[in-house]
């Protein structure tokens, strides 16, 4: 994977991760071009497109677009699932993640990404292991006064930024199914 971008429906970049050395100018140019291209696509279109000599894999979750650039020989579908696994990780960590969590806790979003992907390749695909690593790190925080207070309410949200990336019911049912099968 060459880079990963998260941006909103309004085209605001929310997270960027580059796995190849590029100048700031190039990064900005690429971002601008890609955001435009991806936002212009209709919902039912396929999640892959050719762009320059790269393949773009993207998926929309609520108000956020997750967009990865992979090389010619890389696997599109598994990249799509990398995106999904990342969203699941965020969701599990924040508890029904929404765009605002990623804006305010951008550092956490980056840390989770680093535990999951490194150098553009999957480092640890087990959800449990990634979250364990992040939780261990959180335990090391000397001040732990605020996290509990800002726990999400799960109630109505007022703004466009705050719709859940994964809809609650689907996720729950998924968790249920997994448990049933495992037990």
């Amino acid at each position, binding site marked *: 994977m060459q880079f990963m971008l998260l941006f909103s429906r309004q085209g605001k970049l929310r997270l960027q991760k580059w796995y190849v050395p590029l100048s700031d100018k190039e990064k900005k140019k690429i971002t601008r071009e890609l955001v435009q291209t991806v936002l212009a696509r209709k919902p039912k279109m396929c999640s892959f497109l050719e762009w320059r000599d790269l393949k773009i894999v993207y998926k929309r979750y609520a108000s956020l677009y997750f967009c990865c650039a992979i090389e010619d020989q890389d696997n599109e579908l598994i990249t799509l699932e990398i995106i999904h696994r990342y969203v699941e990780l965020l969701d599990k960590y924040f508890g029904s993640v929404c765009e605002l969590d990623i804006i305010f806790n951008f550092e956490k979003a980056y840390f989770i990404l680093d535990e999951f992907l490194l150098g553009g*390749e999957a480092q640890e695909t087990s959800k449990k292991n990634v979250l364990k690593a992040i939780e261990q790190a959180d335990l090391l925080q000397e001040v732990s006064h605020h996290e509990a207070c800002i726990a999400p309410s799960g109630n109505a949200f007022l703004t466009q930024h705050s719709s859940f990336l994964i809809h609650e019911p689907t996720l729950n049912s998924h968790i249920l199914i997994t448990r049933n099968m495992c037990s």
Partner: protein
Amino acid sequence: MLNMTVIYFISYLYLRTSLKLMFAFCLHSDEGLSKHPVSLETLYPSIKIKVYFALFISGKSKEAEIKRINKELANIRSKFKGDKALDGYSKKKYVCKLLFIFLLGHDIDFGHMEAVNLLSSNKYTEKQIGYLFISVLVNSNSDLIRLINNAIKNDLSSRNPTFMNLALHCIANVGSREMAEAFAAEVPRILVAGDTMDSVKQSAALCLLRLNRTSPDLIPMGEWTSRVVHLLNDQHLGVVTAATSLIITLAQKNPDDFKTSVSLAVARLSRIVTSASTDLQDYTYYFVAAPWLSVKLLRLLQCYPPPEDAAIRGRLTECLETILNKAQEPPKSKKVQHSNAKNAVLFEAISLIIHHDSEPTLLVRACNQLGQFLQHRETNLRYLALESMCMLASSEFSHEAVKTHIETVINALKTERDVSVRQRAVDLLYAMCDRSNAKQIVAEMLSYLETADYSIREEIVLKVAILAEKYAVDYTWYVDTILNLIRIAGDYVSEEVWYRVIQIVINRDDVQGYAAKTVFEALQAPACHENLVKVGGYILGEFGNLIAGDPRSSPLIQFNLLHSKFHLCSVPTRALLLSAYVKFINLFPEVKGTIQEVLRADSQLRNADVELQQRAVEYLRLSCIASTDILATVLEEMPPFPERESSILAKLKKKKGSGTVSDMEDSRKERSTNVNGSNDHIVTTSPSSDLLGLGHTQAAALNSASPPVTSNAASLLVDVFTESLPVVPPTSIIEENFSRFVCKNNGVLYENQLLQIGLKSEFRQNLGRMYVFYGNKTTTQFLNFSASLVCQDLNIHTTPADPVVDGGAQLQQVFNIECLLDFVEAPVLSVHFRYGGSMQNISIRLPITLNKFFQPTEMTSQEFFQRWKQLGAPQQEVQKIFKAKHSMDTEVTKAKIIGFGTALLDGVDPNPSNFVGAGVIHTKTIQVGCLLRLEPNTQAQASCSVKRTHIHAALYTLMTINCNIDYCSTDISKGKIKIFKCIFKSQHSQNK
């Protein structure tokens, strides 16, 4: 009152942003705000930060945001600069704020130092934010890199896995050369050490992968490589996943070192594929066992040919069969994640099957599976199926199987809503096309073209043109197809396409009459594309006589038809039509009067465009004075074109390559201006529009001897139909004496029966002056004489040469040269003149090489070897070992080194038979110090090793020059064979 305002303000923001914050606020408002609003920050710092963040996304105007950010930046700057030392917490807070501002899209130019300070904090969160800042805002500031590397080194040796991971993540994220240099040895050690924690191993593996991608030359292979391969057997699947990624990268570069990974990968894959979905616990993803690892293992196997060991091969085949079987099983979940993960593995397996291309049954099964996907309701799967099938189509085993899906693919072309899917369908049709289905596929593509997206039209046009030519059984079909192309998508038909149809028509007698008839009919349409007018004009001009017998296409009707389009066309097309008219005069004497009338009209004879005017005047004159015989010779039918690779194919290849289309256009533009530029002095007509090559040359040149190399006009006839239009083909640049001039500045560069070119030049620092003498060896005048020089990295000023060189006279031209950059290609001097009736073109490489800008530097033995050792990095060194064909003469070699431009340092090298030199290359932008050492070696067998220098161009020149010394020494001496070795070292020097 104050309290009220603050509360209002903050709640306003909260409402605009999120209830989450609102909750936080409510929870805290009792104590915090009611007492003293200012204490908010001290009591609940993180809330303050989040309020602060909220300000930016509260949707205010852009100006307000920028104003607010500038204020905040000023505040942070003053905090960092303040006398009071900040505690770790505040430092972290402000660094975090800076990061936030940066991520909003604003530039940050400070705070790096504070972030680096955070790295050495022993509080985890502070360290973490510090590393995050470094990772996101990498700056190749060398001072900081050293400090960062120090911090990383400390963390790596801390034996605290969390800290080690942070450090490894940072290396992997930044991945700069400096880091590669510092940790190339440490990271592999951590990776294979027995006591390393699993999570650290994972980070180390991918960290090494990143370093290997950015600076492969710095990662030494060693005994760790075999141990890395054995990580494929590790218990921890996370470690295996990370290690597989690393091995893939390494195996691509050194396949032999990692051969043993094949059997391990097959074994691992087999265990995964056959496991029950719950065996792998958390590595099972939506009922698919370790999909990421499976994909990676399959990918790794694609670095190698099919395993030779029958057992391993059998096991792999079993795995692939199992994967194909699983695709047929009913899904275990309705979730798209399940099918995606399952199919990701399936597609990777199919890639491997295609890569091996050895098991017909598997290939056909893969093809059938993909065939099912072609009609799947998931757009993504249809897209991927089309893409993978393209590759299957090129395998001899599955080509036929792919062809059975033609109807589905054509249907996809017609019904898919997504342009990227349709594009894949076009690609697949192109790939599956052969003689049996070409007519159908071309017809479908043509009909799709009418509605195709603009973005892919040009590519489809090229593909249709190629298929039509490649699979044409009878060429009437080919002609029809191309004319249809022009009719449907005239704007997207590039020059190559219509040049090509003319080439083919001219070369094939059997199709000429049909072509003439068809274009004649096509031209009847009230509105036809200009490209059609071009093709029509050309073909009727050549073969109009073949259809003139029919009263419906009598000469006059043909002429009137063409002329009715004349006024709607651009200048180049009109020029082409004028040439067609004059050809008509030869073909049909009966319309001579009419055509002369047209040529004589004011709109032609006094046309504002020089090209058109000249053609009109010359053609008119030619038709008036020339006898029928002369006319028939001058205007004879074009000779066949030499067979060559289709220029369209070349264009499609280019289009598919990495270069973007716009780049190509640019380069083509550039080239054509070069051509025109160098032609300006001699010809008034631009060669590209002069299809018939008639404008300015003697009749004889036009139809004379077959391989028309020396004559400009005749070579035009050939070259005009290819993409490259240089007047002289690039291969004919004369370089024979070039190397003699590397070490000397004066002498005769070129000589033939007509002309002698001599040089005299001097260079100082980055400037130079070259006198070029053109001697006319004949007794006749050279007319229209011109000489020009094209070069990018050199700034060259010249005086225009006198257009006439009398017989026996010598003409002098001065070039003032400034070296802007280090450069590779020496400039080419193009000389054009007219001798007797024919144009003469000579292109010679001028010996302006990088070493001309050397200034010699004297240094002592100690200085020399100190610097020599400093320049140890491989990229700073070029070494070449070569054989001297004859024995060496010490004095001559010394003269060569001095002539090369460096100072000859006598008595510097302890070995008296070695030669050493030193100098600084001056360019306008940089100065590069170079050290040279020549080691003659009488016994050793030569082994050639070449290392890269800092600047690519410098390397190249130095290499060239190296060879040149070789050349010179062969030239100067006779006798025994000696082997000697020459090393150059260079560095960027800071202005001495």
